[in-house]
């Protein structure tokens, strides 16, 4: 019986380590989940003279997708955003992060434009407000303008569906 104690400690440690290995240390939980989306005035990427308040969509939930033309992983998730845009399920807003207008527009022209609005953040200042540390990152914002979920890295079908469920659940509970 006594000999079993070190062995069972060993097994417990192994279980801890095994679970630890499945976690990605790059995924840092955002303190902004549950907080309102910061309100700033930003340029619209596609129409240079238009500025938008980041609160202009309050009243409907939306997806805020942070992307850049220099970001390879953004291309990976792009077809899913295109698909989602055609379904008209939820508005998708782009935040073009630390990019040039020319490169960004070229990228949208080439790969398709799923965005209802694209906020232009060439300095990354608004990105910093959102705690963006690597693109792509995607925020799911409910209709009160509260961030409900943040996804880091390229989206896939499963996590899009999950995040939309989170938004819908919030909405139903607040009704």
């Amino acid at each position: 019986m006594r000999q079993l104690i070190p062995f069972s400690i060993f097994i417990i440690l192994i279980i801890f380590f095994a679970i630890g290995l499945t976690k990605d240390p790059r995924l840092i939980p955002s303190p902004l989940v549950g907080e309102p989306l910061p309100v700033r005035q930003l340029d619209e990427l596609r129409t240079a003279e238009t500025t938008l308040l980041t609160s202009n969509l309050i009243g409907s939930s939306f997806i805020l997708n942070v992307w850049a033309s220099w970001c390879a992983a953004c291309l990976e998730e792009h077809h899913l955003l295109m698909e989602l845009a055609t379904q008209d399920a939820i508005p998708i807003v782009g935040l073009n992060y630390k990019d040039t207008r020319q490169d960004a527009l070229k990228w949208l022209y080439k790969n398709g434009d799923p965005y209802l609005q694209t906020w232009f953040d060439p300095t990354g200042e608004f990105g910093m407000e959102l705690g963006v540390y690597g693109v792509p990152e995607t925020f799911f914002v409910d209709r009160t303008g509260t961030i409900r979920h943040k996804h880091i890295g390229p989206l896939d079908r499963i996590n899009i569906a999950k995040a939309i469920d989170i938004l819908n659940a919030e909405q139903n509970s607040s009704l």
Partner: protein
Amino acid sequence: MKILAFLIFGMVIGDVNGQTFLVDEKTFTDGSNQLRYDTLMEELRCLVCQNQSLADSSAGLAQDLRKKVVAMIEDGSDDQEIKDYMVQRYGEFILYRPRLNYSTIMLWFGPFILLVVAIGIVVRIIRSSQPSHTNQEVSSEKKIHHDGEHS
């Protein structure tokens, strides 16, 4: 679970003290501001290259965060305000020296708890091996005494 992963991570990063020189390194005219800046740079983690502090990293985000720290120091923010600003956006993770709160309690006290447990185990092992030793001594002493009485 997260706490344990954090603990292990903390053990791994340990004290990495690589000093590198950066192109955009900031020099302040005010010596105390310089000291504050240098200290903050060592205490804030670069989130892109996680085992580097802001002082070490040349990643784009680290540059932006350095600029932000400079701007905040020049605007007269104190160290706490700067750290709060970072934590509000990037979470506790950005601090190399995590604050003491509910989720970091194991991180701060876990090692001491383990130490106490380990000492307890060592003490128990020593105690469990000693009694047989002293019993023998006592019995041999008794024997001598006994023999002495008889002679």
